[in-house]
């Protein structure tokens, strides 16, 4: 019994390959009756966090009001395990969802493996015409559209206005200012200045962009994580922790970060709009006005945050593609996007949604919209999601001092080239 999981993992590996040969070949147009009325069940795997999931469930289930014969089965899959779970379900075909909420970084991967159904032509046209162009780009692979953008986001510097005021500092614009501010906060309040998430390499991106670097250059097929800017970024990460400007953890980073920020143990953190609803739930932000957001601090070259977000995609093997497409249309409709912007401060992907009063009046949207417009668009390559795993290993090693910044950058480069075969 004790070796159960290991054995299962091994058998699953083998079984996966075996079952992958016998896919589902059922009629893809099931679900649409002769009169065009949709029916059946649409299973949606949502990856939103604990603070967001209730709102999304409500929105999803409201689909039934428009299509009474369609039942929506809402399943929340924690974001951290989602990529793996989705792949398990898609490759085995059993218990697979009809619609998934996919991180923008996974779409190309899933599409390249044949897991996703192309969106209908008219929807694809709408995506091109009515959505933010950088959001639309994330749903494409080799010129075809596989996903409709649901929300868009980027990272910002969240700060506790009261704590900064008590320490007499302004929200820092650069990492140098951040270090000074952290020292002042520590001296005045005894608390930490910044919580820097150490167990997820997505949080490394602002540091490498700040030094003028990037993980890869897709145009020239070059790995750039280990160039001079990359090394500098690893050094910066290590320096923030050793200098006492930031605290971090190598495990449970999300929970520890949110707890530290919400209880006032740390005055600042780098995070995205998806953390707003959860942050408001904390003691420090009972008065919502106490939460401030600024652009991520600049490194020695510039300030840069990655463009992120989530798209909705339909499983190619779904038995109910027509209903699934209708569900995606609904979930990415202006009405639903405005609702999630109002309740959760998430940014819409439809250009016109920003004209709506509920969206316009949201302070978080007001901050994040210009930030998103300037956000660094990542290379939408299938390997995008895979790069984060080896990068996480090296980032954590560097930030905890288990390996030097130079070694970490070098090792990340080696791992990247293993994944991106044939790249420089």
């Amino acid at each position, binding site marked *: 019994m004790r070796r159960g999981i*290991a054995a299962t993992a091994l058998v699953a590996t083998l079984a996966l*390959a075996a079952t*992958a040969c016998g896919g589902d070949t059922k009629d*893809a147009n099931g679900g649409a009756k002769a009169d065009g009325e949709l029916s059946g069940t649409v299973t949606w795997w949502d990856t939103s966090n604990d603070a967001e999931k209730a709102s999304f469930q409500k929105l999803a289930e409201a689909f039934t009001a428009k299509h009474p014969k369609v039942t929506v089965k809402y399943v929340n899959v924690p974001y951290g395990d989602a990529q793996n779970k989705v792949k398990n379900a898609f490759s085995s075909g059993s218990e697979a969802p009809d619609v998934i909420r996919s991180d923008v970084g996974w779409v190309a*991967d899933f599409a390249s*493996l044949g897991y996703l159904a192309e969106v209908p032509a008219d929807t694809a046209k709408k995506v091109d015409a009515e959505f933010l162009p950088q959001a639309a780009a994330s749903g494409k692979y080799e010129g075809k559209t596989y996903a409709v953008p649901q929300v868009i986001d980027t990272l910002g510097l969240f700060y506790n206005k009261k704590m900064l005021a008590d320490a007499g500092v302004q929200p820092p614009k650069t990492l140098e200012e951040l270090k000074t501010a952290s020292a002042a906060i520590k001296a005045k309040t005894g608390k930490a200045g910044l919580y820097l998430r150490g167990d997820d390499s997505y949080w490394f991106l602002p540091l490498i962009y700040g030094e003028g670097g990037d993980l890869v250059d897709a145009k020239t097929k070059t790995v750039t994580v280990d160039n001079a800017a990359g090394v500098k970024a690893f050094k910066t990460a290590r320096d923030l922790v050793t200098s006492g400007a930031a605290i971090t*953890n190598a495990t449970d980073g999300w929970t520890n970060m949110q707890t530290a920020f919400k209880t006032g143990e740390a005055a600042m953190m780098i995070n995205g709009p998806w953390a707003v609803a959860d942050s408001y739930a904390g003691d420090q932000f009972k008065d919502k006005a106490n939460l401030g957001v600024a652009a991520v601090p600049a490194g020695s070259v510039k300030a840069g945050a990655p463009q992120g977000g989530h798209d909705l995609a339909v499983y190619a093997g779904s038995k109910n593609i027509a209903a699934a497409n209708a569900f995606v249309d609904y979930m990415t409709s202006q009405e639903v996007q405005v609702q999630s912007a109002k309740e959760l401060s998430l940014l819409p992907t439809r250009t016109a949604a920003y004209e709506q009063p509920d969206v316009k009046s949201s302070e978080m949207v007001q901050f994040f919209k210009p930030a998103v417009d300037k956000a660094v668009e990542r290379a939408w390559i299938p390997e995008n999601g895979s790069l984060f*795993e080896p990068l996480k290993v090296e980032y954590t090693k560097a930030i905890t001092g288990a390996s030097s910044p130079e070694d970490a950058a070098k090792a990340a480069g080696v791992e990247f080239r293993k994944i991106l075969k044939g790249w420089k």
Partner: protein
Amino acid sequence: MAAHTSRSVAKAAGSEAGPDAGTAARGPSRRTDGKAGGTNRPGLKRALATHWYAWAMVTPVVLVLGVIIGWPLVRGVYLSLTDATERNVGRTIGANHIEATYQFVGLDNYAAVLADPVFLQRLVWTVLWTVACVSVTFALGLGLASVLNREFKGRAAYRMALILPWAVPGFVSVFAWRFLFNRDNGILNKILDGGGISAVPWLDDPTWAKFSVIAVNVWLGIPFMMVALLGGMQSIPGELYEAAEMDGASPWQRFRHITLPGLRTVSMTVILLSTIWTFNMFPVIFLLTRGGPGDSTEILVTQAFREAFVTSPRDFAVSATWGVLILLLLMIFALVYRRSLRKQGEVW
């Protein structure tokens, strides 16, 4: 030995040839039950005739084992000789059809894995982890078993309490430990803080993380060791102790010369089992640290998982290669262990 082998081959071939071949089976070392020394047809027939019900009973088990263990094993070995990944195995999903384009590559994967320094790093830590876990678990289990083997008040309650870790599902205990180990909000550091000791980075520092995973695994493994050894102790006849006491043997002498030899068979078995389990102990490492910080607590099994499930496209071939290598290592270990036992006179 060689002569014996060639003879049985000749005989086996002979038995295929004709019914009278069975007469060739002669000699003192010849076995007539049709098991080891080659097929002896009349013997086999007789065995089938007299024990047909036993064969009938065994067949379903053999079939099931063949399907759930044999087939994946064969398939795994085959995959490890190809370059199969998630991208090139054939499949049809809805309207998307992908051709199978993976190829047989011989031992390339093995050469690549063994040449990669990562394999040696993981192997060294896996061996360290196994030795540390098994020895500490065995020592503590033995100590607790000797304590619980005496008559004292509330013995049943203590036994229950010590078996508890075994009754709790593994992932529940590991998650509970993860909360305890949390550096900022964990109870262990809160207690230490009360004693004036600054926070210990239980899971954030490579050395502490190694210590932590071993501690949790020991905690999980003690009940099994204790129960097995306690059972062994209770099967040692009390007269031996009485006689030794009459002869004036001290408690330590009694432990050394009666308990330990008496436990021999049991302890050899539990050490072998425990070694194999610990070597492949996926859940503790994966759930507690995910192999981190960095990759400092990654063992061979979690590395195989990483190859198969974490990076994309999933590399079935390399993962299967790791799996086969792990199996080979454990088989070598079991053989060496058995041989060393046999040398010490254990019939096994």
